């Protein structure tokens, strides 16, 4: 139902000041798929997401959206195609949930275009999808961390973009809500033809939900592809510097990484 938009990074270097965080990254985001970026802390996965989302300008190389350099496109035009949920958005004091989610409609409103029924419908759909309708009239200040996270996701959904980039959207969520969020993103991909890119910490959920997984280490891309093909014990050892067993997830038939630490390791386990 939606046009497939193409997002890719070509020879991209990213950094803050003199510090280079990501080096020579070539990455094509598969359209109509759920892509998950994984990697150890400080490997540059959030930085890659910021680069792809034109929040950070590459020091070398470029990001292309539908063949055009994204940093040279009018930012409002990009905002109608590509939505982003950054890691630490700020909620204005005393703002009410429905109002905050409504801010997602910003790129759809011109200098003089007022709020319309279409905006109401978009906000309503986002609230319903994230199960936040019953708190729609509450101030965001008063919500729990999990509720707040779902409200922010709703804000990004209300933007109604074909491409959606989310930086650790499951932080602060209990396991039930983590699964709900990932189910919701999968719905967007499968039923609405959206393209979604997520940075995730939980490897097993990443393997279960990703159509395409991207593993990064120290600012470089180590492996990408279908989780079943990519997430081997060798890749996990390389990316996270940790021994593990990769077994088959009994529920989803995807790879499941079982870490091997120094303690609680059975006598028969080879490390």
């Amino acid at each position, binding site marked *: 139902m939606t046009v497939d938009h193409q997002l890719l990074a070509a020879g991209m270097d990213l950094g803050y*000041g003199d510090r280079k965080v990501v080096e020579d990254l070539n990455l094509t985001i598969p359209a109509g798929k759920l892509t998950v970026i994984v990697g150890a802390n400080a490997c540059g996965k959030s930085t890659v997401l*910021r680069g792809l*989302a*034109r*929040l950070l300008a590459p020091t070398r190389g470029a990001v292309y959206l539908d063949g055009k350099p994204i940093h040279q496109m009018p*930012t*409002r*035009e*990009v*905002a*109608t195609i590509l*939505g*982003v*949920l*950054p*890691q*630490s*958005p*700020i*909620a*204005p*004091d*005393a*703002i*009410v949930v*429905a*109002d*905050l989610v*409504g*801010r*997602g409609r*910003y*790129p759809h409103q011109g*200098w003089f275009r007022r*709020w319309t*029924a279409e905006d*109401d*419908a978009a*906000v*309503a*759909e986002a*609230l*319903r999808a994230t199960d936040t*309708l019953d708190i*729609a*009239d509450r*101030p965001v200040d008063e919500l729990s961390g999990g509720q707040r996270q779902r409200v922010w996701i709703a*804000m990004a959904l209300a*933007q109604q973009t074909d491409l959606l980039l989310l930086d650790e959207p499951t932080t602060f969520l209990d396991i039930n809500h983590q699964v709900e969020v990932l189910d919701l993103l999968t719905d967007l991909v499968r039923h609405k033809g959206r393209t979604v890119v997520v940075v995730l910490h939980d490897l097993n959920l990443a393997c279960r939900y990703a159509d395409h997984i991207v593993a990064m280490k120290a600012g470089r891309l180590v492996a990408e592809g279908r989780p079943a093909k990519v997430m081997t014990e060798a890749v996990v050892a390389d990316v996270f510097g940790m021994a593990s067993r990769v077994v088959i997830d009994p529920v989803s038939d995807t790879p499941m990484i079982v870490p091997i630490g120094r303690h609680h390791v059975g006598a028969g386990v080879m490390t």
Partner: protein
Amino acid sequence: MTALDVAGTVRHIRHQLAVRRRLVTLALLALLALTFAAALYLGDYYVPPGEVVRSLLSPFTGLVDKGIDFIVLNVRLPRATLAVLTGMSLALSGIIFQTLLRNPLASPDIIGISHGASASAVFCIIALGLSGIAVSLGALLGAILTALLIYALSWRDGVTAYRVVLIGIGMAAIMSAVMSYLFTRARLFEVQQALGWLVGSLNASGSDDIAVMAGALALLLPATALLARALDAMQLGDDTATALGARVEAVRLGLMVVGVANAAFATAAVGPVTFVAFVAGPIARNLLAGSGRGFAQAAIVGALVMLGSDLVAQHALPKVQLPVGVVTGVFGAGFLLWLLVVSNRAGKVN
């Protein structure tokens, strides 16, 4: 629930917010109108209310009473009008900086912009021997130069709120030191004149000041209204705002220019009347309780604070007319203490 019901819920919540916003605005406007009427009515020379109305309408009706018309139209009306205009201007300047820098302390009378205007004005009075409109021009220039200096010193691959506030407070201290130095070099008469300017006063409200302020606001109000729309996105943080398609740096620069201009023109007109810029935004936001950005409401609060303070300054003590800056200073200092106490307890400021 069907999709239609859900959209109805959203519409209902937005409607409630709009109702609250309108009620607050109307109540503030009503209060401002009352205070304005009081400013025309109160004074050493008693003018009955009917006479005030007749005098106001005299340019249209031709029913003239020279003595009363002079008091109402040439003394009280210009004074109240200038109070409203400068109050609005200061309030807008304050809420612009407080919103941009996400810090209630970041109003121009705290981060040094007003101090720059004052130092420049004192320099004009003491070192150059100027007076009147020339001092106002000097103040205008001083405010703009100080703002540029703060911006330049805060710049490091962009401007962060924290650095602007710290450098601004430092700049305020430097400007105060400059003023103190100038005072040590001055003769008593000049010091008196400079101090009079520094407290901020509406005593010398002339039609020139009103024309300049009205002209400035005619440009600044629409500019603020246009730029403030982007704040819907900018309030969510720079990354989120960029993601939503706001041109963050351009809007920020534009708003800063408008904020500085507002502070500069108002200060040039009435002197550095303290704390109006500082209190108006937080008061408006508290009244709105999340139902709006609060720019329009802050402007009305600013006018109200300025006008109300001037009434108190004129009539609170028998036989003594205080400069308006003394009253706003006492009122604002109390508010600052309250803000500090509240922010200490809660760990953050509302």
